[in-house]
């Protein structure tokens, strides 16, 4: 079951201020991990197999943090529909991108930080996930899915 938390938002200039229930999903975990990786790396691999294998390893190492990901183990590598959908959503919202002619990497885009600050950071905190654990996971993930600077 994906945990959901109450999130109080008060973002200047957006007209936001109401309280509503925001579920913690794979997107929030990835936004937080990518936010921390971004400090050291400009991009990560976009190779699907490498990413799924990396997240699978991360789930073994950090079961609590990666609880929202489930993997189907068939054929050559474990696959997660939540991961596919989350990367697709981050891409669609302009938080990450693959550049023409060099589609092998995901580049972190400026709105990634905004998404972290406005939503995902507090969603994970309210779900009881320690930021230190995210930083550790981000470091490990950065190694598993490294892209050139």
């Amino acid at each position, binding site marked *: *079951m*994906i*945990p*959901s938390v109450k999130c109080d*938002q008060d*973002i200047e200039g*957006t*007209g*936001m*201020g*109401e309280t*509503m*229930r*925001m*579920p*913690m*999903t*794979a*997107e*929030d975990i990835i*936004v937080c991990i990518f936010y921390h990786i971004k400090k050291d790396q400009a991009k990560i691999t*976009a190779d*699907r*197999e490498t990413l799924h294998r990396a997240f699978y390893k991360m789930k073994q190492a950090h079961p609590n943090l990666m609880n929202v990901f*489930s*993997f*189907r*183990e*068939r*054929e*050559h*590598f474990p*696959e997660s*529909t*939540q991961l*596919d*959908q*989350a990367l*697709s*959503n*981050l*891409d*669609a*919202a*302009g*938080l990450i991108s*693959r550049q023409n002619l060099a*589609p092998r990497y995901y580049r972190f885009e400026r*709105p990634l930080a*905004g*998404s972290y600050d*406005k*939503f995902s950071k507090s969603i994970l905190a309210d779900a009881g996930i320690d930021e230190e654990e995210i930083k550790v996971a981000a470091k490990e993930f950065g190694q598993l899915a490294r892209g050139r600077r």
Partner: protein
Amino acid sequence: MTATSANILESFYKDIDEFAKEFAGNKEYRRPLPKEPKIIHDPLWGTIKLEPWEVALLDLPLLQRLRQVHQTSLVSYVFPGCNHNRFEHTLGVVQQAQRLIDAVNRQYPLHRPLFKPKAIRSLRLAALFHDCGHSCFSHISEDLYESCTDMTTFFESGHFPKCHPHEAFSALILKSEPVKQLIEEINEFYKIDLDIEMASNWIIGKSAENAGKKEHYETQVINGPFDADKLDYIFRDAHYSGLPVGLDLDRLWSSCKVGKTTDGDRVLTLHQASVTPLEQILFSKINLFAIVYQHPKVRAAEKMFQAIIEDAKGKPDSIHFTISGRNLDLNRATDYLWLTDEVFFAEALSRSQNDPLHKSLHDIRYRRLLVRALTISHDTVAARCNAGFMQLRKLNQRGASTYQAKRELASEILQAAHLEGTIGVRDIWVDLPSDPSFGEADRTFVRTASQTLRKVSDLFPIHYWSELFKNYKWRGHVFCPQKYQQQIHEAALQVFKEQYGLKFKKSAGETSHVPKPKSTARL
């Protein structure tokens, strides 16, 4: 595992057994085992020949009930030709499985085929049973019963590999005691050796191991990147929706061979020069999603179906579906096995005109569908709303909590429109479809000229297609009754701005045909 979980699991297995007993084990409905094969004519694939043991299985109510389950949910309310059902599809999968097997065997000497008779029969058995666990309107009911406590407990128990819930049902039904007994009888009568264990594993995508190496190629006939299931459904759905696709299947089959990966696992492979049919399959899949499966009216009809199921889950005593005197409890995943499209709509005929369920069911039957109040897309969301768009779009993940979040958003919209008491939350839907997956490109190996195996995605960047789909074809919506379209449009704009800081251009209302479309974006 807690005692409660153990009880839920015990009852889950018992319920599947009970279903299998009624639909496969009830000897009252059983005919004598046939001695002759049967020829069936399929509009797509022509002559399909079934062996006598297959006819015996096909005659079971378990497989005959698939005639009452539409292959493409409620798509026929938009594409009237799309009335084909899971029974026709099942026959097509048997045929496609055989063609794949024949294509591979042709690559081997006649006296030493790769697929031996036992494996071939067991693969055909898997093809026959692969969808027997589907419920009413196929995947749209699956989206609902996968969140039922018995189904989540089943998967969380860790006793079963992760797979689609309908695949789990199909495999469990095949392995159930009543079906097992029947297959034993069939094996004895026809002097064959159908392997239930192998067939059920193939249905859920699990491969056999031989000296520590995986034999994926067998599984991939039923559950793989270009499996018999996909080859049939893409062709069939496209044909009946009136959007015929061009797939060069002869080329695909002629190039299909078993190869060894660097890990020593055996997999189905294609020759580099014959990858085009796979690209055609993926391109057709995108088109089917964009044009057929995610058509706004189809999605609206599906939401109305969900509203009825929600009503039934909330008030099982008054709003229920009945089959053979059994009132279904739709809070249990196993009860969905008894629900077919026919059982669903039959309730409309047995209820009086004053009954709310009579009206809800007739609203679908007579196509009084909900309308769009807002279109959510790359094109209608204002610039610099990335974080809010991400928070809304992420609700397209499957699961109970994202479903609940969308229902809460609908409730907020209803309140903002000041329509509480006039209409209910059941009439308002925030719909955010999932993106189609193109994982096939990473799961298909291609034989290169240098005899190495490479993934299709290394040779052709299919992700460009998925990006184009996301940016130009994907659309979420807010649906509501036509009478309140304007009010709900304005309320939805307000709620998305307040909750996510998400602003919309005027086109969000224009594309939804709202009478006076508004904008929350700065001009």
